[in-house]
């Protein structure tokens, strides 16, 4: 059926979301700035802010000082202490839970180390559930949870939050979203996403990639995940498993990979590859083990230096392929790849110089995350905020306000 243009009500709802997003990502913003940024007139902005104020999502205040003549424009602030989401980050080595206020403020945070090994749904969901109870006990009664988001180190089906695969946690087809929703019993749907995909969105929204429409975020955990943002959109693929750059084969017949193939980027660059090359594969694992190799190299350990050079070279090759394919403005090295990039940048960039088309590398920027180790957690929070930013009033109605 042919559809007429959007109704006035639809436009209003859309604009409410856009305004809320400005304040959520940009922090306190004056009405006059919003007028310019959104291209709407003053009375429309006033009507929108008063709707959002009535809904308890923002509040308006006089600015402290303007130093200019004339009546100062009111500043619109997100109600960070009142409106929040729950964000969870499930990595191979750690579980993190946080309460994140509108505007992206981490209000409360719990973290636990996770034992390597098989993913046991009951244990993980149980731990996140008890973290949540602890955090909710400390919240005031007038606060409001508007969403729940999870970043998971593995492939997640977009449609229903089912974890399809995670080689390092030995899990296939686990209904994580559903189980966690039942455990939390907040009556709020739980959104689940791949950690590196969400990391890409987080760094673009409030990290080093602000204003960048084409970027690639690489996340080193035990394996390597990726998130590709092209023309402002995350490339999720058909089912949501896009961006698994860790399984791009860069060395045919190379080291065996947890996925069953050989010579994948994560088999040549992942934690195990580095530790084995450095002759340090043993009881010490995770970020500390990676840092120990970097530290040894810095102190002159030749074996550690060669291991980093080797891994850096493979990493450069992988990035070179990605840059040739996607022509990104920025590549971000997150998780343990931050340490590897900074310690082996000479190899990584030499590869890029020799293997990337000149036109694609001349303005390429290589960066580490501004959000540090919270990149994937912040991504989970942004996923949880997605509903309320898309249609604030409808989302509030759904959580029962």
């Amino acid at each position, binding site marked *: 059926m042919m559809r007429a243009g959007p109704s006035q009500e639809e436009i209003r709802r859309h604009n409410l979301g856009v305004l809320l997003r400005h304040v959520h990502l940009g922090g306190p913003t004056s009405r006059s700035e919003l007028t310019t940024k959104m291209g709407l007139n003053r009375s429309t902005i006033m009507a929108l802010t008063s709707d959002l104020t009535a809904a308890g999502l923002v509040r308006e205040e006089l600015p402290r000082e303007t130093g200019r003549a004339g009546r100062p424009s009111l500043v619109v602030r997100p109600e960070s202490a009142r409106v929040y989401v729950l964000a969870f980050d499930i990595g191979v080595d750690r579980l993190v839970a946080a309460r994140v206020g509108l505007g992206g403020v981490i209000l409360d945070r719990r973290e636990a180390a996770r034992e390597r090994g098989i993913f046991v749904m009951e244990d993980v969901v149980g731990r996140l559930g008890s973290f949540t109870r602890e955090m909710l006990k400390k919240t005031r009664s007038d606060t409001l949870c508007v969403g729940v988001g999870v970043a998971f180190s593995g492939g997640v089906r977009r449609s229903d939050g089912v974890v399809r695969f995670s080689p390092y946690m030995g899990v296939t087809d686990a209904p994580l979203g559903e189980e966690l929703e039942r455990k939390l019993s907040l009556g709020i749907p739980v959104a689940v996403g791949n950690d590196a995909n969400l990391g890409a969105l987080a760094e673009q929204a409030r990290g080093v990639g602000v204003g960048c429409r084409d970027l690639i975020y690489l996340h080193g955990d035990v394996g390597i995940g990726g998130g590709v943002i092209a023309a402002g959109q995350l490339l999720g693929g058909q089912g949501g498993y896009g961006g698994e750059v860790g399984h791009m084969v860069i060395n045919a017949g190379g080291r065996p990979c947890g996925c069953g193939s050989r010579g994948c980027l994560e088999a040549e660059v992942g934690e195990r590859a580095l530790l084995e090359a450095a002759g340090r594969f043993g009881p010490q694992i995770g970020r500390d083990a990676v*840092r120990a190799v970097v530290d040894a190299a810095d102190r002159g350990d030749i074996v550690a230096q060669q291991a980093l050079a080797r891994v850096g070279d493979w990493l450069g090759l992988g990035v070179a392929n990605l840059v040739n394919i996607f022509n990104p403005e920025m590549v971000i090295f997150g998780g343990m790849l931050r340490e590897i990039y*900074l*310690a082996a940048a000479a190899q990584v960039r030499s590869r890029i110089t020799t293997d990337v088309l000149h036109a694609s590398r001349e*303005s390429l920027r290589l960066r*580490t995350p501004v959000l540090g180790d919270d990149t994937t957690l912040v991504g989970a929070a942004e996923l949880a905020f997605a509903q309320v930013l898309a249609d604030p009033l409808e989302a509030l109605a759904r959580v029962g306000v």
Partner: protein
Amino acid sequence: MPSQPVLEIRGLDKSFGPVQVLHDVAFTAYTGEVTALVGDNGAGKSTLVKCLGGTYSIDAGEYFFDGKPVQVASPREAADLGIEIVYQDLALCDNLDIVQNMFLGREKKSGLVLDEATMEEMAAKTLDSLSVRTVKSIRQLVSSLSGGQRQTVAIAKAVLWNSKVVILDEPTAALGVAQTAQVLELVRRLADNGLGVILISHNMNDVFAVSDRIAALYLGRMAAQVKTSDVTHSQVVELITSGRSGELGLQKVNGVTA
């Protein structure tokens, strides 16, 4: 891409008595970019930086800042243009706190007394703009800080004065791995925030991790100034050790065609 360099040197000569340390050196730095200055010990890196910063006078050559020809006869004049240098010794006072150090010798006053509130606010704002999260309190004494935190304070001090160009002399030389990573990220952020950064370093990983351009000095001559995205590690090492690498670099060293 920036069209006009924020800082440019052409044909710089510098001698100490009979010894000519810099020969016909050209060098440029751009806003929003990190330019790494590399070279062996004795290649002239420190002398060049001291010429840029007004500590040494130049014998011959042209100096342009923001496209205009300038004379820089003293460190004060360099600071007035917006050039700050962070030396390896950092020049911080252990017995003063972070705010006092950042404003040392350039304290803000309100009437006759020091304007502590304004200084504190400016210091906090500067550290915040650099996303510095490693320092607990800006009223901490510098003696209680780690090497990386001291480097951070010294860099923040250089940024505080609306400077346009910050020159960092081996900022990671004395640091451990974790602190080196933080300082490298800080160096990158300075440029991303819109400053021109000149980084002197011997560590090729540091240079490749953060730089946009590399200027290689060889025996007092500028062997080449190249974009980092156009060179490999081994080419830069060759420029440093022999002044040339294939087509790059000096084709005639000390009067001898190589």
